[in-house]
Structures are given as C-alpha cells and as structure tokens.
C-alpha cells in the first residue's frame, strides 16, 4: 500500500512535469533503432555496423551486430538488422530465422510487424520457398492498414 502511494506520487509528479507517460500499448509511434535502443551502448555498435555495411564490409557489420546483441539481447531491431544483413549476404536461412526472432520481440506495431513479415517473405524466396514466401506476404498484407495496402 505504501508502495502504491509512492508510485501514485511519482506518477503525479511525472504527469505534472509534463512527461509523456503512456501505457506500453502505444501503437502509432514508428519503430526505429532509436525507439528500441535509446541510451544503450549497443547504439554505437549499430551505427558502426551500418557504416560497415554501407562500405560492403558485411563481415565486420555482422560482428558489430552480434556484439550489440549481447548488450541488448531483447532488441527486435538488432535481429531485424541481422536478418537484412544475412539476406544481403545471400543466406536466406539465417535471414528468415533472424526475421522470425525480430517478430517474437517486436513491439506491438502493425506496420513494423508487417515489414518484418515482408522480410520473412524475402528470405523464404531467397531459399526458393515460394509458397512460404506467399504465406508470409499475406501475413504482412493483413497487418497493413487498409489505406496503406
């Protein structure tokens, strides 16, 4: 009960000070590296990974991302980045696996989840799994808002 009061006070202070206290079920905010990793040291490694990837150094990018994952093991975004990287390297199997892992950890955001299903579809296509790719694409479609689809 005392704890409850403390929390109530804290909540009041936060609300009064104008901080945006929103329940976790916020759906409109787009998912980005920043929403996922803000304040994490993994952010620095992610940006190094992006640089390395831009220079075609996929091996180095992969190493950066794997290191980042040990710092932020529950980041959907990092798994998504690994999936994209593996896809670029032509490893559809791992790309699909990482996209699925990204989905498991994905925040409740339909656009983001749809994007991940597209990634699964691409990874399946890369492996020659057409029907699997179609199925994943259908899941992506279902998640997209009608006006965007």
């Amino acid at each position, binding site marked *: 009960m005392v704890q409850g009061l403390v929390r109530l006070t804290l909540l009041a202070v936060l609300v009064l000070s104008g901080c945006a206290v929103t329940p976790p079920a916020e759906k409109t905010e787009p998912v980005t590296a920043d929403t996922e990793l803000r304040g994490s040291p993994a952010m*620095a490694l992610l940006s190094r990974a992006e640089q390395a990837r831009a220079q075609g150094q996929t091996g*180095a990018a992969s190493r*950066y991302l*794997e290191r980042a994952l040990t710092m932020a*093991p529950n980041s959907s975004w990092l798994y998504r980045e690994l999936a994209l990287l593996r896809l670029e390297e032509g490893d559809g199997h791992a790309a699909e*696996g990482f996209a699925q*892992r990204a989905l*498991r950890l994905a925040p409740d955001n339909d656009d983001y989840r749809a994007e991940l299903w597209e990634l699964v579809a691409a990874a399946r296509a890369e492996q020659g799994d057409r029907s699997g790719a179609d199925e994943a694409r259908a899941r992506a479609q279902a998640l997209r808002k009608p006006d965007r689809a």
Partner: protein
Amino acid sequence: MAKNAKKPASARKGSARRPAKSGNKRNTRSGARRWFSWRFIAKVSVVLLVLAAAGLAYLDAYVRDRFDSHVWQLPARVYARPVELYPGRVLARNDMLKMLELMRYRRAGGAPTPGSYTTDGNTLVIHTRGFRDSDGGEPAQRIRVTLGGGQVRALSSNDGDSLARLEPLQIGSIHPGHTEDRVFVPLDRVPPLLVQMLLATEDRDFYEHHGVSPRGLARAMVANVKAGALVQGGSTLTQQLVKNFWLTQDRTLARKLVEMPMAVLLELHYSKEQILEAYLNEVYLGQDGKRAIHGMGLGAQFYFGRPLEELEPHQLATLVALLKGPSYYDPRRNPERSLARRNTVLKVALEEGALSDQEYRRFRERDLEVVPRGASPLYAFPAFIDLVRRQLARDYPADVLGEEGLRIHSTLDVLAQLASEKALSEHLNSLDASGDALNGAVVVVAPAQGDVLALVGSRESRAQGFNRALDATRPMGSLVKPVVMLTALQQPKRYSLATPVADEPITVPLTTGKKWTPQNFDGESKGPIPLVDALAYSRNQATVRLGMELGPDAVVRTLSQLGVKKTIPAYPSILLGSIGMTPFEVAMLYQPLATGGFATPLRSITDVLDKEGEPLARYPVDTEEVIDSGPAYLIQWGMQQVIEKGTARSARSVLPPDLKVAGKTGTSDEYRDAWFAGFSGNHLSVVWVGRDNNENARVTGSSGALPVWSRLMAGLPQTSLSQVPPPGVEKVWMDPSGEKTSGKGCSGAREYPMLEASIPDQSDGCGSATQVKEGVVEWFKGWFD
C-alpha cells in the same frame, strides 16, 4: 630427412683432403715417384677444386632455397572472447582485477604504457593493448572505467563512445604434427635494447663480419685448447642461425666445416636485418613439456606472460642470458645462475652504452619476475581447446593450422570458465574427497547466439585427457521429459499444462516379448496429476503413460525437431531417457528450449584471422525457428516449475530470489548418472556427474549435478527468462480436474498459461469474472497493487 642427406657433400671434401696429405708423406718417403706425386697432387687439387666449387654451388642453392622458402612453424593461436566493457555490463570489481591479472597487466601510476593500469577506488584507468578483429579491432588506448554495485557504471575512451574492449586473452595454440611453438615478431617491433644486448653478448662484430668472425673463432679456439674439448663455439649469430635452421645440434667438426661456408653464403644473399630477424624468431629458448619454445616473442610470453614489446630491460636481459644455455640458465629451475648471467648481460649493456648508469643500477636490483609455469592461462582450458580444434579441423587442413599463424577468436568467457571449474571441483570434492570415484563435466552456452562460453571436461580441469563434456555418452534420464511434454503441448487441442495425467503403475509390452514396468523414484504413484506436475516432480509413470499415448515415435520426431541428428530408435524406454547423449549434445538439445524455440548451432569460434590480423573467415550466427512461440513458452514455464517447486527447488536458496530460471534434473538407472540442464535468459548450463566406469555413483540429479549448476549460475551475471506470454497464450485459472476453467481463489484452482486452442469452453462456474484481459486499465491497476 633431406638435411642429413646433404651433409656428406662437405664431409666428403674434408675427408678427401686428409688422405691426400698422407699420400704426400708416403711419396716423400719412397722418393722415386716424385714426378708422379706432383702430378697426382695437381690432379687431386683440380678434382678437389671442382668438388669444392660444386659443393659451394650446391650449398649456395641449398641455403637460398631454404631461406627463401622457409616456413615458420606458426601454430594457430586460440583466443578467448575479448572482455567487452560498457555501462551496465555486470562485472564485479574483483572479476575485473582478476582479468587484468590473468592478462598480465601491471599496476603502474598513470597507466603509462599498453598493458598497464592504475586504480583509484572504484575507478580504474586501463591502458589497453590494441588488437585486430574482424570488425577492425581496437587501438591501444587509455580508458577510464568506473565500477559500482557489481557493474560498469561509466566508461570513457578516446573515441567518445562509452564502450571498449580488452584484447582477447590467448588460451592455447594448435600445432598438429610438430611441437615447435613461436610468436613471430617482425624486427621493427623488437625492442632495440634487446638487439643491443644480444649483439654485445653474442656477436660484437655482427655488423662488420661476413658470416664468420676470425676473432671470435680465435677466442673459442683458445678456450677449447685450454679445456681440451669443444666447449665454446665462437660462432657468429649467422652461424648460430645456420645451425638452428639447417643443421643438427651435435657439435661435430664436419658440421662446423659446413656451417662456416653456409654462414658466408647466407651473408652474401641476405641483409643483416633479415638474418637478425630470422635469428630472433628462430632461437631456441626452452622447453615446456613437449613444446619447444622458439623465438623471443614466445620466450617473452613463456617466461614473463607479456608481449615482447612490453618487457623491461632486466627481463630482456634474462632472455638474452638464456642464449648461453636455455636449460642451464632456466630462470625457473636455476634462478641463481639465471640472475647472475642476467646481471652480466646488464653489465655488458652498460659498457656498450645501451643502459645508463642509473638504469643499470635500478634494473640489476630487480628480481627475475618470471611468471610461475602453471599460472599461465595458456593451455589452461584443454577441454575447450579440444572443442575448438574439432570445429577447426572441419575447415582447415593440419598444415595450415600448424604453420600459418592463424588467430582463432573463440567464444570462451574466461570468467564463466573459471566459475564452472570451481563449481564442479568444489562440489565433487565435498561428495568424494578421495577424488578418484566421481567425475563430471560442464557446458555453459549463451543460448541466443549459441556461443559456448565454458567447457569443463574433468574435475581436474587442467588435465588433458578424456573430455567428458564432448565424449562421455551417457543415458540422459529424465532430461528427456521436457521433450515428451513438449510433444504433448504441440497438440493444444488434446493437451495443456493442466491436462490430468495418471501417475499410476503401467506395464508396457516390448517387442522383445518382455514387459517393462517403470517405477517412480520414490516408489509411489500419485494418481492423476496435471501434466506440469509430472514434469516438475519428474514422475516416471505419468511420463510413460503420456509418452505411450503420444507414441515414442512422436517423441523421436520432437527430438529431431529440436536438432538431434542421430537416429534414435522409438523404443518405449526412450521416454525415460535411455538415449545416450554427451553433455555437449544435451546443451544442443536444450538450446532451442532456452531461446523460446530458435535452434542455433553451438559455436566455439567467431572469427579466423591471418597472422597479420586480416579477417579470413567468419562463423556467423545462424538461427531457425523450430518450435512455435506458444508451445515454446509453455514448456519454459513448465521447466520453471521444476525450480519453483519441483525436484530442483533447492536451487532457489542459492540463486538470486527474483531470478527466473528453468531446468530439469536427470538421474539414470542405478544412480549411474546425475544430470542437470537449465537456463536463465542468458545462460544455458549442463552439468553431468558420474563415474567413468559407469558404476553406481550414488548421486541423483538433485544431489550430484544441481548444486554445481546452482553455484555456477549464481556466479554469472544473469537475466531472467521473459514472463511475457506470446500472442495466443493466456493465463487461465483452471479447476483441479484440469478440464474446466475456474477463477482466482476458487477451491483447488491453479493458474496456467494456456494456448487458446486448449482453453475449455466449460467453466466450473466459480469466479470466472476475474478473467480480465490485460490492457490499459490493468496497466494502471498494476501501479497500485
């Protein structure tokens, strides 16, 4: 060998000359054949000249060929994972200091050079050593790390990012087929003082002579005549190199005779710098069991545990002192002799002006400061190195591993390894003080990426030999039960964690005509119990009943779904774990359970780099969804009950109270094998304890293996298993029958996570209104509970 076949070329020359001379004497005595004698001598001389010329030409070609094509025997080196430092990383101050000590960082005010550090309360200034990695690696730099509350609080480095890495610790080398070991150091990285000391003591005229030093030889001759034997070589460095490179070590005149022309030829073709570099990397400096220590680079590591570049003058002098006789002047075995010789070298360095008077006086007061032999992390983890070697052997032929100086970056976490070794040996010592009955093995994995963090193959972890973690195939016992339960949970219309299972006697007719009547561990039968309790309390009869309902072949399919490659016959006995598995295979099997359904091959290697540090190969993480999120969550939840209230509840008193972990005990027939396999959010550990002769070990999973597991897990930085149910899973209160929904507080009602397909339509009519979906209201309510 080729080199022995070549030697006679010169030996022939030497021996041919002597008969010629004696022939001359004989002719003088006879007198009559003088004319013939002169002609004979002339002929012989011509023949000899031609022979000598041919011999020289041959030697010349030989020397050049061997020098140009010389392949340094550079074994592949294996490194642990680099210590990653960033704010929030769990790292106790003691562990940080332990790592620095293992890596032989020295304490020095201001941390002036790479490999040094200084402490100021909870803040450490560390001057890191640079290293190469597939992501470029790290420069040597001074970092400031503040520790507190068991973690890194703050970190600042040169590049402004708040993260840094300490160089990976070398934990072994792989040299198949030969026993030479060395760390190649190019001349420009050799401390100039070492070269000055070397030349001053071994070969003063090095830069003047042409391979042979008549002055040096004269000095040696005098010494040899005095002693009446060959006691001194008087060899130049070039000659010593020739001796080491091409010739055998025996001191024969023939060798001496061929050594000199070879030294001269070597000098003709190669620069002094090339010869010096070869010498510094070739010279023999001692023996470590079967391993021959070659070159100053490895010498520095072997005797001082540090890179050559970091050695201080008195340490460099100790290395130079060894050249006179690596065994006689061994600083570990003969410290007085070594010290006296070292001081002589320092004195010579002073006389040559390489050291100032003040430096000389300071460094001659220093102790030898050699590291104890057993203290080196090199070769300290034989079981893990064994795993690395096996994984490498699939991709690299033996000669590449032995010669090319590959750098293998492994996944070993030194702190996890040490914690595992300690947990196993301490517990086994308490169970079996004599030390000869019980043994064990531990495998620790970071399940998300499949990284093998630690591997212990014996209670005496330093001992080479039987690697139980990889090679002890033992019945897995009840470790198979989660697989049986998962088989059921993947059929949500038929089974949930609440489904009643009869823990009652059962007799299974076998194809052999015999009958199998499994018993429970306590000899009792509990009657109908929820499926999760059959797991939590490891009920054999309930599991066999469930397994026979599912069919052993269905369980075999789940095993293969989880990644088991070997063929497992679908006998009923597999339901109680008659399947033989090694601890490593168990870790592979449990890995997808630990990650919520993603199979990732276990790896012990992340990267292979060449000797310059250029990346050659990556071993990237691979992953595949093998279990749907729903059943994967349910089985994890079930395995958490094993620890919350079941056969492994004793772990609770050892682990942090709020840490959510899951696992399973295993005991094979007649107490031969004790197992525990379990995981947190970031560590999966498998422990096996038993006897090598497969006799009754008088241990159970709970008494033999679980204490090791708990202590080990308590010693590692842990994160909890996620308690958030995936989509399609709800927490539901069920009535005691497990067939109707109920409500919180209703008699006998228990809450289970359920797949939607498993939730019965029927309610027992008690408190069903309490079932409210989580939402914004719930979230706000949570603040006040």
